[in-house]
Every structure is written in C-alpha cells, then in structure tokens.
C-alpha cells in the first residue's frame, strides 16, 4: 500500500480552521442575540439558522452556487474586487461551509448563553462592568463549554462535508479538492487502497472529536445538533 496523498486532508483542515474562525466571529453575536432578545422575529431567524440541519446539501449547495456565481450581486462584487470568482475557489468554499456549519456553532453557544441567564450579567452591571466588559469577563467564561462544543463541532462538520463542496467547489487540487471529494474520486477510479487510507484517517478523527465532545459534556450536557 502506497502512502496516501495527504494534500486533500491538509486542505480540509485549512478549510475547517478558517470556517470555524469565521463562524466564531459571526456566530457569537448571533447566538447572543438569539439568547437574549425578546424580538418577535426571533423564531424566523432561529429557523433560518437551523435550515442547514434539515436541507439536503445539494439544495443548499445549489442555492449557494447561484448566490455566489459571478452573475449574482455578491459574486460580481467579489470578482470586481479580487479578480477571482467565488464559485470553484477556496474563498467560496469557506463561505459555503460557514453557512452549512452555522447551526453547529450557533446552537451550542445559544444554549450556553441561555444557561448563563440574566442574573450574572445584571450582577456584573451593578459591579460597574460595562456591557462588553461583562460579556467577555462573565458570559464568555461561563459559556466556556458552549464555545468548546461549538468550535469542535463546526470544525468536525466542515471536515466531513461533501455535498455542498461538490456543488460549489468542484474538484480542483489544492483549491477545492478536500478529503471527502478525494475519497469519492478514488472510489470512482477503483483506487481502493488510497480510499481505505483516507477513510480510516477520517473515521479515527471523527470518533476522537465526538469522544472529546461527549467527555466534555458528561457533567452538564449541551444539546448537539
């Protein structure tokens, strides 16, 4: 058995890393808003956030493909600014993955923030902590496990994604050829040895990630998915 080509694995890790970072930046304020607002539009935003959990990746990928294409507003702006297209590129893949993994970041964070509740935040305010100060010094440390769960799940979910990548990114080595695509192609070309190697890596990785999450959640479970 020859040593497998690890470039797709490395690309997957990069994609998952960037996506998770992006999701932390977008998902934290969104989850905080969902956890604290009394706005009547909250259920609508919540439903939209959860959509990627139920939609087939092909449907999601199809819409993202149209939305990101150079003929669309966003895709056109991006092309004018960077000279690249969002479809069939790493940047487009990051956007698509972020959308696809959004609930995996937002839901653990939202339930963690809800568990913190108003009590400690009000206490912090009466102790002269401003809103941002109270958020970072009280809400964030009290939601530590929510953050850990969100980060691990978003990362793992992005590593494992296939349908959306296929629709939006295609199969360009070094650009969009992530591990799941590589395995698919190896099976198509009957290169079972390579497929075995990469699949085993993904299996061990996924199991380890879930083991970490469930070990962390043993004392106070955080709903996953």
């Amino acid at each position, binding site marked *: 058995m020859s040593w497998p080509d690890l470039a797709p694995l490395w690309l997957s890790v990069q994609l998952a890393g960037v996506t998770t970072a992006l999701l932390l930046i977008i998902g934290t304020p969104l989850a905080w808003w969902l956890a604290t607002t009394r706005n009547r539009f909250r259920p609508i935003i919540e439903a939209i956030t959860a959509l990627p959990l139920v939609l087939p990746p092909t449907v999601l990928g199809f819409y993202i493909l149209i939305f990101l294409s150079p003929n669309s507003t966003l895709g056109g702006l991006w092309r004018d600014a960077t000279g690249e297209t969002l479809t069939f590129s790493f940047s487009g893949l990051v956007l698509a993955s972020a959308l696809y993994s959004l609930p995996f970041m937002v839901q653990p964070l939202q339930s963690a923030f809800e568990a913190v509740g108003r*009590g*400690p935040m*009000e*206490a*912090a*305010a*009466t*102790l*002269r*902590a*401003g*809103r941002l*100060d*109270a958020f970072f*010094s*009280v809400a964030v*440390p*009290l939601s*530590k496990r929510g953050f850990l769960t969100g980060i691990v799940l978003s990362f793992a979910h992005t590593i494992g994604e296939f349908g959306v990548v296929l629709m939006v990114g295609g199969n360009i080595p070094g650009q969009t050829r992530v591990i799941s695509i590589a395995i698919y192609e190896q099976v198509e070309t009957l290169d079972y040895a390579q497929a075995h190697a990469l699949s085993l890596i993904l299996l061990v990785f996924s199991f380890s990630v879930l083991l970490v999450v469930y070990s962390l959640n043993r004392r106070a479970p955080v709903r996953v998915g």
Partner: protein
Amino acid sequence: MGLSLDISLALESFSLNVAHEFPARGITAIFGASGAGKSTLFRIIAGLEPRATGRVAFGEEIWQSGQKSVPPFKRAAGLVFQDARLFAHLSVEGNLKFAARRSRSTRFEAVVKTLDLQPLLARKTNDLSGGERQRVAIGRTLLSAPRLLLMDEPLAALDHSRKARLLPYIARLPEAFDLPILYITHSVEEVTRLADRMLVLSKGQVLAAGKVSATLARLDIAEASGKFEAGSVVQARVIAQDERFHLTELCVAGQKMSMPASNLAIGAELPLRIRARDVAVARQKPSGVSIRNILSGVIKEIIEEPDTAFAELLIDIGAGQHLRARITRASVFELDLALGHEVFALIKSVSFDRRVLPKK
C-alpha cells in the same frame, strides 16, 4: 442629600408608585409582604428596569429623568441580590477582585476584615454555605465602592442561627463604610434590630414611612406585614434587677413590667417588640393569673377583619406609646369592647425577644 425617588412602573397585577426622599445615612428598612414590589423598587434604583418611568436622583447626580437613564454600571448604587449571584467561574477572591478592580477600590483589606472573609478567599463559590455566600456577596458589592447600598433580603435564605450570626456584620456596615443602606425585609425582627427608619410597601404603594418605632405601632401595618408578625415596639427603661427571681424590672410608659434577666445596666433604654398575638385583653384587672405583665390602657382603634375570626386592637398605654392586640371578634362582642374603654393588656413574659436588644 440622599436618594430621591419619584418613579412608577406597571407590574402584572398592580403598578408600583414610589415618591420618597431617603436620608443620606443610616439603615432604612423597606418592609412589606412578598410581591409588594420591593425588589422591583431596588432594580429601578440600580437601573435594571428600563421600562420604569419617573425620576431617580442620588445627591447631585441624576440617574433617571424622563427618557434619560444612566446605565447600571455608571450608577454608584451597590445591589446585594437575594440570591447572592456570585460568579461561578471565579473563586471568592476572584469575585471580590472583580469588583475592586473596576472601582479601583483600595478597601480590600478592610472589607475582608469587616466581613471575616479571609478564610474563604481561596474557596470556590459553589461549595460555600448560604451564609458564606451572602457575606461574599456583601463584600463584593462593598468593593464596587458604592455610595448607596441596596440589600435585598440578604438573610432570607438562611436559618435562624445563621441569621443571628450575620446580623451583627450588617449592623456594622453604615458606620464602617459611611454609606446609607436600604434594606429589604419582611421580618419585623430584622427591622427593629437594624433599621432607624422604615418604608412600608403594599401592592406597589407606600403605606407608611418614618421612624421604626412610630411606624411599627401603626395598625394599618398589619396588612403589609402579614398577621403572624404583626406587633408593636415600645420603649422601655431598666429600673431594677431582681436577683432572686432572675428578672429585669422595666418601666414602660410609667407602668412596671418585667422580663427574664438580662445584663443591662439600670437606666438603659431599649425597644421591646411585642407581637399582637401575644397580647390578651381584660376589662377588669385580673388576679390569680400567671401572667406578670399587665398594662392598663385605652382602646384607640378596633379593626375587625372581615371573613375571619379575628380583630385587632390598638391600645394607648400612655406617654404616646401603643400596644397592639390580636383577639377574636367574639371576644370583642362578649367583653363589649369599644373605643375609649379602659382595658388591661396581658402580655406573656416570654414574648420579649432577647435578640431585639441592642448590642452593648
């Protein structure tokens, strides 16, 4: 100048309306049954109820006026929550320093000493007892350098002996930290033990306010305090110690009383709390009864409670002092009690509460 309030807020079943000027020193008890709006009043003062309207001012500072409201973290009001609300991710020391760092308070050592927190500093907040949690919460709030301290039933969750242990710490605060305190409670005992003044709240309205002894003696307080705790406070002076029977002789409104011996000096003045349910009434001076404390007085008010067996009497015992008695309506009828009648109030010696005695 202390705290000046003129606020209202619509609550679920009534609206809270309080217009009051609080003194700039001492402890003022906010007294009333649960659900009277006491905690909400504190939340408004601290700036935690954005829907409240009206005016909140402390000294020269205006905290709320019309649509403008200073956010809670910029108000010099320290709020000790009923449930302590310690930060679970920080140790006791971390909780204290959270406040001290933001207020740049330099009184860390003084607060730790006053509240006896040294042995707790390294502990996690989760395994503190109820009394310890409250001490830490009080200390944390003091370290936020407030100029007004709001304490929301800090002793409510504690049993009797823990309460008794924590009370002296609280009694020490106004002097040690030179700040006015508003103290929510529905315990008459805590009021008489701690406060100089009180404000009685019932269904969101101010029922009475003023000096503790004068306010407690008023009959309409019953509604706010709940029948069980209703009573009055009278001023007594120690006139002699009876070594043989182990009694302390007292003079109340020119009449003699006694209570189980205490080591008070002769001439000492003390407030006595007498619960309404511990007072019985007779038309003639009774003889051959074991009750030793019998005061004569005149009925000033009779309030029959509709749909119950009970009535409350306000009895003038002279020198501007009043006693309250809770008896049955049947007795009022059978003894033919009416306003202006002279009666004898029979008080059980055991009803004197030693814990209300001021510390020497």
